[in-house]
């Protein structure tokens, strides 16, 4: 079982490494969106500090959502996905491996670049640390929930726009607690525990159920 997981994971990572621009596009999209906000709302330090967490999270939401389209698309076009559905291995495990690879390629870079973005918004080093932790726990949830939408909209005309309509509302809980954690960290660092615990709970539940739902959606889309 675990070998299948590794096999798919390594395959997806290798494939992505051969087309590195895709990964970089997501990352730069994130950076550009975040950099545009100060130009729109003004560069006053106080305002930026207040907006920072929310802006970073919304940008992360959008970036991870835009990358979702590619989660199954390539495998769908060349028929690999159909083969995966037909294998004896549980489809949800394969889907989980694909989601993990997807997160490593699109979610993890966002976490790593967060300090840079945090500095743009004059966040304190504590706040940046909290933001990185929240992103580290939160972005996998985004990939997991998003996979359901990506599977449902597989191969549709205008799938990207539709995907955003379906998935963005479902991201709200992660957004609320992800941004909330950074906000309370400015008051008292000890307050962030319930936020991170909740995000962790979301992650556990999503790991359990999202692969099942996405594999059901894939079967519907491929039949």
């Amino acid at each position, binding site marked *: 079982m675990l070998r299948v997981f590794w096999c798919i994971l390594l395959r997806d990572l290798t494939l992505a490494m051969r087309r590195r621009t895709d990964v970089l596009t997501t990352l730069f999209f994130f950076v550009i969106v975040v950099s545009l906000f100060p130009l729109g709302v003004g560069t006053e330090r106080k305002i930026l500090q207040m907006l920072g967490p929310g802006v970073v999270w919304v940008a992360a939401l959008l970036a991870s959502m835009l990358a979702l389209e590619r989660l199954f698309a390539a495998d769908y076009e060349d028929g690999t996905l159909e083969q995966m559905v037909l294998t004896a291995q549980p489809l949800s495990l394969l889907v989980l491996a694909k989601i993990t690879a997807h997160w490593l390629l699109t979610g993890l870079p966002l976490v790593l670049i967060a300090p840079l973005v945090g500095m743009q918004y004059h966040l304190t080093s504590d706040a940046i640390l909290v933001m990185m932790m929240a992103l580290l726990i939160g972005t996998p949830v985004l990939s997991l929930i998003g996979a359901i939408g990506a599977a449902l909209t597989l191969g549709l005309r205008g799938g990207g726009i*539709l995907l955003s*309509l379906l998935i963005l*509302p479902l991201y709200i809980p992660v957004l609320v607690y992800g941004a909330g954690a950074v906000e309370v960290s400015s008051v008292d660092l000890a307050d962030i525990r319930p936020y991170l615990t909740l995000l962790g709970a979301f992650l556990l539940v999503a790991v359990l159920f999202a692969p099942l739902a996405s594999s059901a959606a894939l079967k519907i889309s491929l039949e």
Partner: protein
Amino acid sequence: MALNWFRFAAPASFYPIAGRLVPVFWVLTAVLLLVGLYWGFFETPDRLGGSNPQKEYYRIIFIHVPAAWMSMWLYVVMVGWAAIGLVFNTRLSFMMANAVAPTGAIFTFLALWTGSFWGRPSWGTYWDWDPRLTTELILFFMYIGYIALHSAIDDTRRADRAAALLAIVGLVMVPLIFWSINCPDPSQCAALHQRSNLTQIEGNILFAMLMVALAFWMYSFATTLMRLRSIILTREAENTWVRDLVSKGGRP
């Protein structure tokens, strides 16, 4: 016991039944609506006291609360039919879910619209990021998402099943979303809406509100069945019974 419920699950046998039920529901809608609105406007006090005194504008409650109830109930009904469709693989259940969705979306929009018209005189603002308002807005997006996904897929079978799955995922998420907006700080929850309690509402107001809620239910049955008949006709266009029916002039 010999009654076979799946007989009614055949679109061909349900179509005439629905046709006979629609007028009944229209009459019920009209009667209940008249009673409810008459009671609401003429048998209730003009002003209410309490912690947040209300003037005549509180009469929006007679459509606001029933519309908000309907928006939630219809979503549950829709998910119910979608789930039945996925489990038993019955075509009619999916059609039923499809027929419910637009009516649900309309009631969701009405709940938001009437709510903002009530909020302006009562709270002094048309919109506030109150948990219930926000969740209602999300619910509206869910309806739109369901309808959009269904209409984006050309293959009917795939559209039915994909939209059904989406609706079920949505039902799981809605309480979570409500809770997360209601308690942005995990240790405390706050809300602009007063904690509502049906037993604390004055009798006449409650009566009018319940009458309109029932009227909205009947209205939903009627429009859903009408839409269902159209869906059945479109999807079964190749069957002989539809052809016979159309050549006879379209009456049930």
